[in-house]
Each structure stands twice: as C-alpha cells, then as structure tokens.
C-alpha cells in the first residue's frame, strides 16, 4: 500500500479528507472545539509559567543571597493574639534597625496600585513606600537625580523616585525632562527627584522598574490614607556567615515588639530568597500537574468528540464508502481516508489551539503586564498529542468504514 501506488493515493486521500472537513465546516469546528480549548489553555498557561520562571531565574541572579524578607505570618493565629490579623508596623522596622547593633540594614515596604498623573497622561502604577536603604539592599541604582533621605521620610515630604519604565508610561516623557517636575499621585503633588536605572527583573508578581518610590511615612500618612501597617520588611545581612545570627536577632527583636513569649508561635515569618524560590517552585510544580490534568481531561473529551463525529461521518457516508469500494477502493484506502480525516481534524484543532494559546499569552502579557514565553516544546508536544488523539480515536471509526461490506454499504439507506 505504501509503494508507488500508496504515496500517489495519499495526496488524493488528503484532498478528500479536507473536502469532507470543509463540507461540514461548522460541525468540524464545533467538534474540534474541545481540542482547541484544551490546547489553547495549556499553551497560555505554560507560556505564563515559562515567563514567570525565566524572570524569577534572572531575579535570583540579581538579588543577593544575604537578603531576608520578613512578612506577617499567614494562616490562623494560635493562642493569645487571635483577634486581628498579624501585622508588621513601621515601629518594627525601627526596632530592627536600632536594636540589632548595626548588624541589619532594614527597609520597610508598603505598596499600593494608584492613579499617577503627569500633565495629561496618567496610569495605574505601583506606589512603593520605603526607606532609602531599600535601594541599596535591592541593588537599584540612580540614573538621574538623587534618592530621598531619612529626613524626608520623617518629614513626610512629597518627593518621588521613579522606576525606569515610569517615564515611558507617563507619555514617554524623556527622563531628564521629568526631573524636578510635579506628578500627582491620587491627586497629591509630588516632586520628581530621581530616576532609577533599569533593573530588568520583572515577574508576574512585581516589576521594580514600574514603581513610583516615595518615603515610607509619606506613603503611609499622606497617600494611603492612614494605613499604618507594612507589606513586609527587607533586611540585608553583611555576609552569609552571619545569617543564623541575623535570624535569631530578628526573631528576638520582633518577639519583644509583638510581646510573644518564647515557645509560642511567631506572628511573622523570616524567609530568605531560596525559601521563596522553593515555595515558588513547589507552587509551579502543583500548577504543572494541574495543567497536565486539565490538558489530559480536555484532550480526552476532545478525542471522544472526534471519535463520535467520525462515527457519524462513517455512518452518513456509508453509501459513499460502498461506491468507492465498488469502484475499486481497497480496505486500506478507506481506512486511510477516514484516519487521515480524523488526523487532519485533530491537527487543525491543535493548530488553532496553539494559535489561540499564543494569542491568549500575548493578551495576558499585554493586559496584565506579565512576561510570557511560548515554549516551542509545548507547541510541538501539543501538536504531537493532537495527532496522537486523531489516530487513537480515529482508528476505530476508520476500521469500521474499511470493514464495511461493499454491497451492504451500497444498499444503505
């Protein structure tokens, strides 16, 4: 069959298969929808995951291993302090700085997405309140102007340092021109005193280049309307050798601040970057399994849909099969005709799904500002799977068609 005559027939059979799909365009489309959606969703999600993990990889490189992140403990509180969520306050940051004998470099953090206006341009940006130390801890360098100082924090001065992408988002104004100008954050005027160099470590969760940095106290008391708690505290330790000491110092100081007895669970957690990374990877793995599950289920459902429509197609075209057999078609000819039809249907669905997934990823990247990367492997695997489904679920209907008795098929009403 795969001799000269076979290869010759293959193009014919392709033509017949595509014509059959085209003749029932709507039905074919609806049938492949399961596969389109399954493949599309998986490609989108995988792209998001890829984008995220690539960026996190760059962030690990950009960030020191000697940085600790302190956050309010998540989950329900045990024992005494049941009322109210666990929180960190500016006082905690002050205590860490003042009581650690200069061991720790401390930067409290609070942030909120707010409307930022410059002349007639405005955008919804992350406004980030912190201390000047933050820029050093996070390796953020100035491109223009200066940073705010601690006095400006104490004085709640309305000064702002912009991430490198912010000028782009405010009408594409050249950074030099923004220096000394006034921008509005939630209608409150701020003087632009500095613009940062690009850091280039955006993740789906944060992009330090697209923030408006203001002094912590300005943020807390002027911008965020009396919110007095922090999102977290970044702490830098002079060397990795002092990490253990830093842990115990932070624990000691914050327990005293929060009046938590030794032995009782703390209402804060101290994590270094590899902890965060491990958590992230764990989440990502769960995500991947979930994804694989969704993909498997939707492709299975899609495949059953394909099988169903192919059985319908075989039944509908019983007479055609009879005619073809009467005209000299062999079993293998008929088998290939229907197998290739279901293969084409699935590959078409897979290709549309890849296109949809690509589009979805682009949309998420554009709208959500998240980096995405369409993994070539994912595309190839998706198409391979579609083809496998086409063959697997197509073989039975095709065999049924091939085995039809010519005279029975011709007589079929």
């Amino acid at each position, binding site marked *: 069959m795969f001799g000269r005559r076979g290869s010759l027939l293959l193009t014919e059979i392709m033509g017949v298969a595509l014509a059959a799909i085209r003749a029932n365009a709507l039905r074919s489309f609806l049938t492949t929808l399961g596969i389109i959606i399954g493949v599309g969703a998986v490609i989108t999600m995988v792209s998001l995951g890829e984008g995220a993990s690539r960026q996190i990889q760059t962030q690990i490189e950009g960030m020191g291993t000697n940085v600790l992140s302190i956050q309010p403990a998540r989950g329900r509180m045990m024992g005494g302090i049941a009322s109210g969520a666990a929180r960190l306050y500016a006082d905690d940051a002050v205590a860490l700085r003042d009581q650690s004998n200069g061991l720790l470099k401390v930067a409290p953090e609070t942030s909120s997405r707010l409307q930022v206006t410059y002349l007639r341009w405005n955008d919804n940006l992350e406004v980030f309140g912190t201390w000047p130390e933050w820029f050093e801890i996070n390796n953020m360098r100035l491109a223009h102007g200066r940073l705010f100082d601690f006095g400006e924090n104490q004085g709640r001065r309305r000064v702002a340092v912009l991430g490198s992408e912010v000028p782009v988002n405010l009408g594409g104004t050249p950074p030099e021109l923004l220096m000394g100008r006034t921008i509005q954050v939630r209608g409150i005027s701020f003087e632009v005193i500095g613009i940062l160099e690009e850091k280039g470590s955006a993740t789906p969760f944060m992009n330090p280049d697209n923030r408006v940095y203001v002094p912590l106290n300005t943020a807390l008391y002027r911008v965020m309307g009396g919110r007095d708690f922090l999102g977290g505290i970044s702490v830098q330790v002079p060397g990795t050798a002092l990490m253990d000491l830093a842990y115990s110092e932070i624990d000691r100081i914050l327990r005293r601040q929060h009046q938590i007895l030794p032995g009782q669970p703390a209402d804060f957690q101290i994590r270094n970057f590899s902890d965060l990374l491990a958590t992230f990877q764990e989440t990502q793995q769960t995500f991947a399994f979930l994804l694989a599950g969704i993909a498997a289920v939707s492709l299975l459902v899609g495949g059953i849909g394909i099988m169903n429509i192919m059985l319908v197609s075989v039944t509908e075209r019983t007479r055609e099969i009879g005619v073809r057999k009467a005209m*000299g078609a*062999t079993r293998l*000819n008929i088998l290939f005709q229907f197998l290739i039809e279901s293969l084409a249907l699935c590959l078409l669905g897979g290709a549309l799904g890849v296109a949809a997934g690509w589009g979805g990823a682009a949309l998420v990247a554009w709208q959500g500002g998240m980096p995405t990367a369409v993994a070539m492997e994912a595309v190839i695997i998706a198409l391979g799977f579609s083809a496998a489904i086409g063959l697997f679920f197509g073989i039975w209907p095709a065999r049924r068609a091939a085995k039809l008795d010519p*005279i029975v098929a011709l007589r079929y009403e």
Partner: protein
Amino acid sequence: MTDMGGNGKSENDVIIRTQGLKKYYVLGAETVRAVRGVDLVIRREEFVAIMGPSGSGKSTFMNLIGCLDTPTDGEYWLNGTSVKELSDNELARIRNKEIGFVFQTFNLLPRATALHNVELPLIYAGVRGRSRREMAREKLELVGLGDRMSHKPPELSGGQRQRVAIARALVNNPALLLADEPTGNLDSVTGEEIMEVLADLNRQGQTILLVTHEHNIAAFARRQVHLLDGLIERDFINHHAGVEA
C-alpha cells in the same frame, strides 16, 4: 459443462463462466435462496439482458458477477481466474480494472464534479493528475457530456447522471460492463437514450451484462437470460436485437 452461447468459438473468448453459483441469505430460522445454482457462460463482445420477475435473484446474481458479493457455493471464473480464491485486495483490483458497474440509482458522489466522479476508478488505479483528467474527459465526451464536466450530480438530469455513471464505469476500460436496471429511474425516452449509448458501446466491442424488467429495454440486447426463483428459466438469442419494439 454446457456452452450455451458458444458455437465453436475459442475458450479464450469466455469472460464469465459460472457453475452451480448459489447465494443464500440466512435470516434467523429462514434461509432465502436468492440464487440457487446458475450455470452461465458469457463471451467477449456479447450484450446480454437478464430478465425475470421481482425477487428472482437478478440483482444478487449481478453483484456476484461484479465481485461486490461472495457466493455461498459454486464456482465463478472471470477471465479464467477463479474468483473464490481471491483476497480482498485482489477483489478490489478486479472491481477497479475488470468491471464497470452502472447502478439504477446512479451512485455518484454528490459533492464531486462529473469529471471527478469519472476520475474515481482511476484514482484507485493509481493514475496521476493530468493523464487521469484526460482519460476521464475522453469518456465523458464519449457519452456526450463534454459540456457538463464541472457540474455536480445535483445539477444534472437523471439521464445525464446515468451518462456520468457510464463514463465512470468505462474509464478503466473494463472487460465487462454490468448495469443493474440502468433505466429504472428514468422516463422511457431517457431510458432509451441511455440504451442507445450502451448499444453503441457494444457495437464498439464492449461486453455488457444488463438487468431489466422491461421488454423494450431488453430488446436492445442480442441475448436474453430469464431467471425465475434463482434459476435460469430461459436463455436465448434475440434475432431482432437493436430493432425497437
């Protein structure tokens, strides 16, 4: 073995030879004996009409001859080859190359053009693009449909559809043309036109086996075989063949 149509002609001329050919259908407890033992010899260039009342086994016999169906018992040689021993693929090759089938209900592919319908047997014969189109075109012109090649069956009249079917049956130059009531779905004028086409083909040497109910249709054939209850009742030469009743 009885050589009914042969008067000292050579054995090489025999296209069809059946011996005790039977086809039974088992339906539960009942067995329908559609063909009960037919001995028949048909020679090259003959034009044979098979007649008989409804249910006498004409179509069943034709399907056996056309290798669309397999006999319950008996022997059938096509061009000297015993069909019984042939594999599925060899039967497909015979249907493709040796036999052209014309049906009462045309059995064209409705979505394909006349030309493509005629190309169908060539596709399975492995004939490629340009020469395939040329061969199909030639046969369509032969049946007088040179100007309807890109029409699809729903756009053609019954008579035109049957002409397409005849062109399709002829396209691989088969040894044998089988036609099971080819005029059954046509009015009498159109039916006679179709018969003229067949008679013309026979005059050019095409062997034809035809099933019909109607005497005026059978009158186009030189030889008539009458079936009754799955057996040959009469087999005779019609000396007025071609002279319309």
